[in-house]
């Protein structure tokens, strides 16, 4: 079974699960939840052990609410079972292995059977459709190909969509721009920080992206703000859509914005979402903000039961005007592990980004450098000066520095040193931007 098979289905068939009536949707979810609990119990020793500890068996799952009886799965559980301790299928049935970009310790392994690949690919097609893409689009895929799920996830999805796929992968920015000019893609897929870099480089090369056929961008793999979205849409003449995914669950295609762009629809017939209080683990009432927890309802190779994503969001309770009945979550602005604690104050890099972008004349190239001096935490915000800021006078730059400092203090409540740095002195990302350099634990 290949992506070509999916591609022969009509969009209305493929997208059908997005528009299921609530009763059908919940009935299907419960049936699958029971099946996945049984699969985990029968085939995956670590899950059975945890369920036994929690005094719950698959038979105890009689309603969707009973999911709360199942124990959580956390990132360290995947690390501890590296490489294949959580497989529910024999390796002979696993057709694909991926590993996530682990920043600490060993990578996280994900496995897929042929059917898992079908499910993953079909959610990607649903995501493409939700973002206004269709058969006949030309898709430039600038997500990294390889063990990272982004590259191949978008690739298979774009092929199954019926698009013409340019598998350029990440990096080599000049070539990306040349392809945009010469191959005329209508859709681009990349990390948001890398696309910002592409816009900047295109400007240097004298290429106006707004005059190209590029119409839509699908961006994800890292948090990005609405201000950044506007910057990208203006700079490239595209509509920029947010995509949500994580390798531990499948990769990209867990959720996607629709044309309404008021939250991301979670493909919940495949990935059951819950919002919990990260401190207590209690499921929160709909609309309240908390940590997103996901359970795979259709994965055979490596089921994930109540995986704590560390992403902070809430459900959007109102029905969406697009007609999709699958629930929406708010755009992920921050994660529990992006959070910094500086002199006892919780600071999210996204808050600093909003403060920076609100101040006139600041490009989104910045980094935060944290140090500890004399036992006290210090935050330095290094911001690149742009041609627009620089007008020959010291006082203009000093004024910019103090406005940034004041803006940040007003937003996050702590005082940071602001350093204006030369253009291109902050490392560009071709994948996820590393905005925080924390030197405090040396």
């Amino acid at each position, binding site marked *: 079974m290949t992506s070509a098979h999916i591609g022969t289905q009509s969009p209305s068939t493929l997208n059908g699960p997005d528009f299921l009536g609530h009763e059908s949707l919940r009935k299907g979810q419960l049936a699958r939840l029971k099946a996945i609990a049984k699969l985990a119990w029968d085939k995956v020793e670590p899950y059975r052990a945890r369920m036994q500890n929690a005094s719950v068996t698959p038979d105890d799952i009689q309603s969707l609410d009973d999911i709360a009886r199942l124990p959580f799965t956390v990132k360290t559980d995947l690390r501890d079972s590296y490489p294949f301790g959580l497989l529910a299928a024999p390796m002979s049935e696993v057709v694909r292995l991926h590993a996530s970009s682990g920043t600490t310790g060993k990578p996280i392994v994900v496995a897929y059977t042929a059917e898992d690949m079908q499910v993953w690919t079909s959610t990607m097609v649903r995501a493409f459709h939700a973002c206004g893409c269709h058969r006949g689009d030309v898709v430039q895929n600038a997500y990294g190909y390889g063990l990272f799920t982004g590259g191949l996830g978008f690739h298979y999805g774009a092929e199954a969509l019926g698009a013409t796929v340019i598998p350029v992968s990440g990096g080599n920015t000049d070539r990306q721009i040349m392809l945009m000019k010469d191959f005329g893609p209508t859709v681009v897929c990349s990390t948001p920080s890398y696309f910002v870099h592409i816009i900047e480089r295109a400007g240097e090369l004298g290429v106006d992206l707004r005059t190209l056929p590029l119409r839509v961008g699908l961006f994800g793999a890292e948090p990005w703000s609405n201000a950044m979205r506007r910057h990208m849409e203006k700079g490239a003449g595209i509509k920029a859509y947010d995509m949500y995914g994580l390798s531990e669950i499948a990769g990209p295609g867990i959720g996607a914005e629709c044309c309404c762009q008021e939250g991301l629809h979670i493909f919940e017939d495949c990935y059951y979402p819950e919002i919990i209080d990260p401190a207590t683990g209690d499921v929160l009432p709909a609309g309240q903000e908390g940590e997103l927890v996901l359970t795979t309802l259709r994965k055979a190779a490596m089921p994930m039961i109540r995986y704590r994503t560390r992403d902070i969001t809430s459900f959007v309770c109102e029905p969406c005007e697009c007609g999709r009945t699958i629930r929406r979550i708010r755009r992920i602005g921050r994660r529990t592990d992006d959070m910094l604690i500086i002199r006892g104050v919780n600071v999210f890099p996204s808050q600093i980004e909003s403060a920076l972008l609100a101040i006139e004349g600041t490009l989104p190239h910045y980094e935060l450098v944290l140090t500890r001096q004399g036992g006290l935490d210090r935050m330095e915000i290094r911001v690149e000066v742009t*041609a627009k800021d620089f007008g*020959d006078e010291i006082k203009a730059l000093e004024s910019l520095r103090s406005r940034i400092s004041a803006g940040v203090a007003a937003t996050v409540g702590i005082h940071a040193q602001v350093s204006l740095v030369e253009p291109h002195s902050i490392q560009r990302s071709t994948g996820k931007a590393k905005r925080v350099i924390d030197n405090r634990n040396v």
Partner: protein
Amino acid sequence: MKIHQISVFMENRPGQLSHPCRALADAGINILTLSLADTQQFGIMRLIVDNWQRGMDVLAGKGYLAKATEVAAIEVANEPGGLARILEIIESCEMNIEYMYAFPCARGDKALLIFRFDDPDRAISALTGKGAQLVREQDLPTR
């Protein structure tokens, strides 16, 4: 009558001063005079060179943040009171001086000063009207 000055942004770290100057030197561009404005964290180097357009190209090509600014060059008598007199004239025209600096070598009995006014056209016409000696870009001393 306006002179083109190149301003370069530089972070306050080692090598920042020498590298742009070396870039200009390698391109055969001569610096006629310069001034360095500094804060604790960054500085602005202001240069009058013998070919400002090429100077801008060279610096921009090397990735420096450089801007061309219009300044006025005024010749005064190289004697006590030479500077005070021109400053009094400028004040009488009610014009604001953003910054100023001098050419290093006096030419006999003349000294050459660079002034940055926020409205260079208005300043030049007012000062010329009051008898000040404005020097054209092509007449700047190159040696």
